[in-house]
């Protein structure tokens, strides 16, 4: 248990240094699938944040009762419960958005980011640290989704959340809101993040 990061460190790490999408390459299914617009991306980010923080807190509370060979079952059970809650709440109060996101909300159950945080942090550290970790990682995940969604929505439709960003004459690059656009955008942004990192590393030397 020695040398575990503190709550603050966990929180900060999740946002950029250990960003779930750009650094750990976790949770890529929703990253690719729902980033064709800003609104679905943000809804997904909030849902994941809810599930991640709740699951982290619950797992951290019962961490001393966990049996090593049964821990994954307990993680999955906890995650599935909160995902179901998120899915039902969306269907009840954000009906149209729930229809847009379709199966991707139930699919948060298999988002490896959440099980990874339960395993790495929540099952080993106290509640405060686990909550901070969940929050940090969620913000990192949200930022990643928002950045990809912004690029795709602007290039694909010339608009962002209903406001025209590019001139009306912009020939909408429809491919950007289609699945290939997700791969292209993610690849290019990943490359950009790595390039910036590389430059900063060089400058330090």
């Amino acid at each position, binding site marked *: 248990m020695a040398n575990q990061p503190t709550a603050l460190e966990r929180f900060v790490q999740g946002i950029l240094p250990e960003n779930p999408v750009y650094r750990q390459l976790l949770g890529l299914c929703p990253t690719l699938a729902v980033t064709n617009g800003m609104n679905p991306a943000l809804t997904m980010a909030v849902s994941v944040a809810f599930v991640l923080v709740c699951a982290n807190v619950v797992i951290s509370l019962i961490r001393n009762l966990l049996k090593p060979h*049964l821990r994954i079952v307990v993680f999955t*059970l906890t995650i599935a419960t909160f995902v179901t809650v998120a899915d039902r709440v969306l269907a009840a109060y954000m*009906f149209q958005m729930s229809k847009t996101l379709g199966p991707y909300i139930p699919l948060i159950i298999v988002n490896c980011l959440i099980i990874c945080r339960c395993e790495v942090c929540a099952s080993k550290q106290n509640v405060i640290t686990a909550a901070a970790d969940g929050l940090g990682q969620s913000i990192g995940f949200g930022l990643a989704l928002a950045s990809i969604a912004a690029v795709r929505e602007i290039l694909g439709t010339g608009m962002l959340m209903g406001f025209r960003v590019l001139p009306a004459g912009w020939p909408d690059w429809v491919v950007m809101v289609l699945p290939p656009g997700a791969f292209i955008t993610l690849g290019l942004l990943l490359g950009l993040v790595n390039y910036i990192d590389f430059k900063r590393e060089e400058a330090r030397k």
Partner: protein
Amino acid sequence: MSLKNSNLVQAWLVLLLATLFGTALAGIQAKLGPVIEANKVKETMAKIPVLVLGEDLAAELADDNQTLTIKSRVVEVKKNGITKFYTVYDAWLPEGKMIGHVVKADGQGYADKIELLVGLDAQGKRITGLFVLAQKETPGLGAKILEDAWRGQFKEKSTEKHLSVVKGGGAKEDQIDAISGATISSKSVTGIVNTAVANVASQLEVTAGPEKNKTPALQNKEPSKNKERS
């Protein structure tokens, strides 16, 4: 095997959590389930005036603070040994004149099921509007079935002949222009409309007036799906 090593004892936490979580979820479903169902019904109900009256008249009616009387019923169609159920909404003007019907129909699209609302006039002779309730067609291509420009083509079409889909514009009477790059989605929607109209048009006659059927309990009652059984 000692008690401590038995699988059930080892899994006590899993069993306990499963029970707790299950109970909690049942509670949430009991609370939110009706809200979700109401959302679905509300979406359909909100579309009916536009479907039978058209945008302008529906807006006029809403401005006058008046609403249509809407009653739903289930129409049973037997064909080739298959019984298919359609939910039909009958709409009356505030003064009691039958104004039209809306048929809920579904069928296979290019990707997943497409659910439609088809508006028909009082005699079932003309299509008065089309709305897509649910679809998962390709964004940017097949999803254009959602757009007014394409859906509007169905307006004023006669129900006497089957509608056909043509490519490259120049659709005449009884024809629907295909969305470029989404011929399958266009054909799916047209097919669903054709089938629904053919099956239901003959059974639209309503003898009873709106007043007799004004039981509120009946108004929101609808089967969750058009069930098919052989």
